[in-house]
């Protein structure tokens, strides 16, 4: 294959990564923005979504489309419930102290990972895609399902943006993010907003995982890369900024796809991590974010 088509393929692969990454990172960014805590178990909630998708699709059987749709609805709900339980039983009890929350979510990370290993096993298992269709381009054929991931992610991002900017729920979330105490004084149930946001953040990660699982199998260690990449996206994009998150996800996803195709993936990850650490040191508000008040 010539250089041009090769590059196009790399960009397409990168866009699929970006689509999944944007959803995962949006969940992390939402939780950090509104609650001011970092959820280190976010990657494991992503993994839980993928593993549950496999379990649901397998137990339902029948046509792949039915199993996949069931997983797409049920897996995020279950993951949301797990996150809600963790929020009520642990995070609220430590009063959302940033350091205690990090330590507690590290604990949650290990628990979910170990339970997945015990009950799901160390094998990587695929979920059949809901439909098989190859779109033939002049140089190579490309999976229609992969393109539909990009579309689904874009749709969800637009919906998220509409919810945040146009609805009352979005207004309440933004008010809580802007000033917790004043929001409380105006009668906003901050406590319930926190619970809802934490569950919603986890559900976004789970949806992303269900979308990706037909093309990259479910495995109990699959949560590590999304966590690191989500951190990177959220930091580059500016914490709590939806637009920044999307722009950064596309930037990171595509450059990761292109660099990994032409250079060593380990080297790419190394350089990206170092650069992002430098961004955090020298420009803590992110490349696109505004300075914190």
């Amino acid at each position: 294959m010539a250089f041009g088509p090769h590059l196009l393929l790399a960009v397409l692969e990168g866009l699929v990564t970006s689509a999944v990454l944007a959803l995962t990172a949006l969940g992390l960014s939402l939780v950090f923005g509104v609650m001011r805590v970092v959820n280190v178990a976010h990657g494991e909630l992503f993994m839980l979504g993928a593993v549950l998708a496999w379990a649901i699709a397998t137990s339902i059987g029948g046509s792949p489309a039915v199993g996949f749709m069931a997983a797409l609805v049920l897996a995020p709900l279950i993951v949301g419930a797990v996150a809600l339980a963790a929020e009520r039983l642990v995070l609220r009890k430590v009063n959302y102290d940033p350091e205690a929350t990090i330590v507690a979510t590290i604990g949650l990370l290990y628990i979910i990972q170990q339970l997945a290993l015990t009950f799901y096993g160390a094998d990587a298992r695929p979920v059949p895609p809901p439909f098989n269709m190859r779109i033939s381009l002049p140089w190579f054929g490309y999976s229609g399902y992969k393109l539909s991931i990009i579309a689904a992610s874009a749709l969800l991002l637009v919906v998220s943006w509409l919810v945040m900017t146009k609805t009352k729920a979005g207004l309440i979330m933004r008010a809580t993010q802007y000033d917790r105490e004043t929001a409380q004084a105006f009668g906003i149930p901050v406590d319930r907003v926190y619970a809802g946001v934490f569950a919603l953040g986890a559900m976004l990660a789970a949806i992303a995982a269900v979308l990706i699982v037909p093309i990259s199998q479910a495995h109990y260690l699959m949560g590590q890369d999304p966590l690191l990449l989500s951190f990177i996206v959220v930091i580059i994009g500016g914490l709590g900024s939806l637009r920044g998150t999307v722009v950064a996800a596309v930037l990171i996803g595509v450059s990761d796809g292109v660099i990994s195709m032409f250079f060593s993936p380990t080297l790419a990850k190394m350089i990206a991590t170092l650069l992002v650490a430098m961004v955090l040191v020298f420009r803590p508000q992110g490349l696109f974010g505004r300075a914190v008040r």
Partner: protein
Amino acid sequence: MTEGSSPARAYVLHLAVIAILVVLNFILPAYHHGLLARILVLATFAMGYNLLFGYVGLLSLGHAIFFAAGLYGAGLGVHHFELSVPVAFMAALACGAVLSLVIGLLALRTSGVAFMIVTMMFAQVLALAILYFAPLTGGDQGLVLQQQERVVHLGDTVLDLTNPMTRYMVALALFSIVLLLTLGVVRSRFGRVLIAIRENEERTRMLGYDTFANKLAAVVVSGVICAAAGSAYALLFGYVGANFASVQYSILPLLWVLLGGAATTLGPLIGTLFMYYVVDITSGYTSAYLLIVGIALILLVLFFPKGILGTIRQRWVRWLP
């Protein structure tokens, strides 16, 4: 904080702990003897972590980088560059010092959550670099140091670090030096400034202390101690592997310190000892040791934030350093 009232009591307690550990060298059965030597080295790592986390209040999620710097500094030194063991040990300390100085200069520009993430990312870069330079480092497989690479010649005396007795005593010597060093530091003027920074950084700065320089010094001391533990681990146990640079080895010292009691000098030893034996005993029944680590972390944060020695100090023994 009522220390100062009885400095002698604190030193007697610490010397007694060291004396007990010396006696254990001669009476422990072989299995526990080997385990305790390992625990002493890892407790040294935890003490280095405690100096920063417990006394300065800086929560790093990337201390594996300093442990790994010592581990690989010493391991690569004896394996590829044929350094003698003492020279390799010094080289490892130098690696730890330079690395902690650079990371301190960068990471201390941030604070709070950003500090945790930045330190974690730097550690991740080293972990990836170890995998990337696999021809030199052995990558995932790691390197095994041969017996002849782990013998110390000091004049006429020959110390064979593969001998269990020697190994235990060397581990204990390192542990004791660092323990007494920590005790000295936290009772010194420097240590009090560190505690003041933890309690109220703004006010400490207003009182005329250079908080950045003090924090940087704490990062370097902590990094060098962790590097010393790492290089001792490589030289004593003869294995250098990439998993020691992973995130898990940044989390474990945090767990040990939280369990034993942050900002207590003996807490890291108690925490490491306790956690190591819990994992060792349960691994007889289940391989799910990460589950235990996870549950322990959550329970500690929820119900026991001061750890074992921290609670004892608060309730009963006020003079405990």
